[in-house]
């Protein structure tokens, strides 16, 4: 008995050591639960971070486009109004005074990079072959700050001078084109341009690889008959999860329409929210199971020791001391269980790393168990232990010493 250790601690520790098998079983049970919670949370956040990183590297968080054109009434108020208003066709239009808009957006503090883009439909022709393509005119020096196109170039290099074109692997195959070959782009307006293939990209997506070409902004403006204009401005922001608020700010500031990736990928976010909810549910039920385990072990202990508790009470032990004695046991079981569980979660992690690999041997995605998660789990498990012990502790504290000693 250590001199500094209070009575409740000494008794709690001895009681747990006395029922060592029960104590160990429940600690291992809590440990497994904690390991599952830690590992699952880490895996889920790793997976989500991975998806977000993959998505956001090749997609601008915010795209600014000109507001939609609507058919307006000729006269305001009064007069007769047509019952049916035919919606206007949306022609390819430039953002009005896009240089000014761009400067306005660049001034916003959360914005990291801004790039003007012009996109439109066209045809790529080479010899007898022709394919419908989506033309993207870019300003390379700023575009690469928003979209990590450079990572995806598998042949040639990423230069977009006025006579250059970058195409996807599928399109190169369909047209039989390789680096240094020429191909012709035409558009609905009748304009056409002959360009050199300088780079071939692979986004790992067939539709993008066969249907997208990148050319310089100026050439695209000519081809799409939008001289001096851009069809959209793409914006990269510091925190992608703030994109929607920033998009609103841009909209208010510039009067243009700003769409965040959060809005355009609503389905993805719903799926992620569902995952998070599932994770929470699993956490809750694993926690509940651990709590019930601790509670049942302690209830059994209270019943087994009711005479001993009675005699402790008869000797002058207060109800509070008895209460704390059992709460402490719950807390210690929770804490030790969570420490064991944290250690176990690293074992799970090592296992996962050896199993979950891409075909090429690289990690499928990175899972990190961060210290705050472990601390939170330890604190959480201790609290769960105390809560679980509350019922048995109350039972013990309420034992009538006379009845406990007499009974049975």
């Amino acid at each position, binding site marked *: 008995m250590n001199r500094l250790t209070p009575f409740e601690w000494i008794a709690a520790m*001895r009681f747990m050591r006395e029922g060592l098998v029960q104590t160990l079983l429940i600690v291992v049970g809590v440990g497994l639960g904690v390991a599952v919670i830690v590992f699952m949370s880490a895996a889920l956040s790793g997976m989500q971070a991975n998806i977000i990183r993959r998505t956001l590297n090749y997609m601008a968080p915010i795209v600014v486009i000109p507001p939609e054109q609507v058919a307006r009434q000729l006269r305001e108020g009064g007069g007769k109004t047509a019952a049916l208003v035919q919606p206007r066709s949306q022609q390819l239009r430039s953002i009005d005074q896009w240089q000014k808009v761009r400067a306005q957006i660049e001034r916003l503090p959360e914005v990291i990079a801004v790039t003007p883009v012009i996109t439109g439909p066209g045809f790529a022709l080479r010899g007898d072959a022709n394919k419908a393509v989506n033309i993207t005119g870019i300003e390379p020096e700023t575009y690469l700050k928003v979209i990590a196109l450079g990572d995806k170039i598998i042949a040639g290099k990423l230069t977009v001078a006025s006579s250059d074109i970058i195409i996807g692997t599928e399109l190169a195959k369909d047209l039989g084109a390789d680096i240094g070959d020429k191909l012709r782009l035409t558009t609905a307006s009748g304009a056409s341009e002959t360009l050199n293939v300088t780079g071939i990209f692979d986004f790992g997506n067939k539709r993008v690889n066969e249907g997208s070409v990148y050319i310089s902004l100026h050439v695209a403006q000519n081809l799409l008959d939008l001289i001096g204009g851009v069809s959209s401005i793409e914006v990269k922001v510091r925190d992608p999860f703030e994109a929607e608020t920033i998009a609103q700010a841009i909209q208010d500031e510039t009067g243009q329409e700003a769409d965040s990736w959060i809005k355009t990928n609503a389905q993805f976010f719903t799926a992620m929210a569902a995952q998070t909810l599932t994770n929470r549910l699993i956490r809750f039920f694993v926690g509940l199971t651990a709590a019930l385990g601790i509670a049942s072990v302690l209830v059994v202990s209270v019943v087994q020791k009711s005479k001993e508790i009675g005699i402790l009470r008869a*000797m002058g032990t207060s109800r509070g001391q008895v209460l704390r004695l059992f709460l402490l046991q719950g807390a210690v079981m929770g804490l030790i269980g969570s420490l064991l569980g944290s250690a176990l979660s690293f074992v799970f992690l090592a296992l996962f790393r050896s199993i979950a690999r891409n075909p090429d041997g690289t990690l499928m995605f990175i899972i990190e168990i961060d210290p705050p998660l472990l601390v939170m789990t330890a604190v959480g498990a201790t609290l769960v232990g105390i809560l679980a012990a509350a019922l048995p502790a109350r039972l013990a504290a309420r034992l009538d010493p006379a009845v406990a000693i007499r009974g049975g």
Partner: protein
Amino acid sequence: MVAEISAAETLRLEGVRKSYGVGTPVETEVLHGVDIRLETGEFAALIGPSGGGKSTLLNVIGLLDQPTRGKVWIQGIETDKLGDAERTRLRGLSIGFVFQYHYLLPAFTALENVMMPLLAARGRPDGAMRERAAALLDEVGLTPWKDQKTNDISGGQQQRVAVARSLAMKPALVLADEPTGNLDTNSADGVFDVLRAVNEASGTTFLIVTHDPRLAQRCDRIIELVDGRIVSDRANMNVVRRSGAAFSESAGARPPS
């Protein structure tokens, strides 16, 4: 009637009645008005047939239970006005318990079990507690077994540990409920010798419930409880005190503090 409590009075019961199932159709009165006074240093036996209310009476005296009517004074303190926490405190400080079964905590050694009441009262262990517990174990002749877990010693030894534990707080009154009921004759005599020796050495008051007439005859006073009433309460003339005269003198000479 205004009760006058002398300083040498450890216990006083006046008109103690105890009923179970109060307010229900099965209300039963177990104690029908019990009056007892125990002077400091008395060594008294409480005898009577089973079901006569001895254990109930002991619970009431030990503040484990409250009387339905009547009053209990412990060392001059009127207990019926005390709250639960104060009763627990007074019980811890003034009353020691020895039961038929020892109820030692098997997770602890003999020494630690004896320390337990001190530990519960003071919160943390200290050297003085350890010394006190060791001295008590020495008094009951268990020094060689003091560091054994209580499951590893004999029944008589366990009961002697329980006696030592009941004395840890230097209680004024020790209540023993058939302390030798589970023991063979030899062990029973051993435990009884210990109780008697403690009584003679320290002047601690003892009230011992026993079914064993042989042991009752070794007490100074025999109180008989039958059907919840005291039917006889007499000094036992048969008892020969080993240090009788000396003890009487010292008890009589105690200054009225």
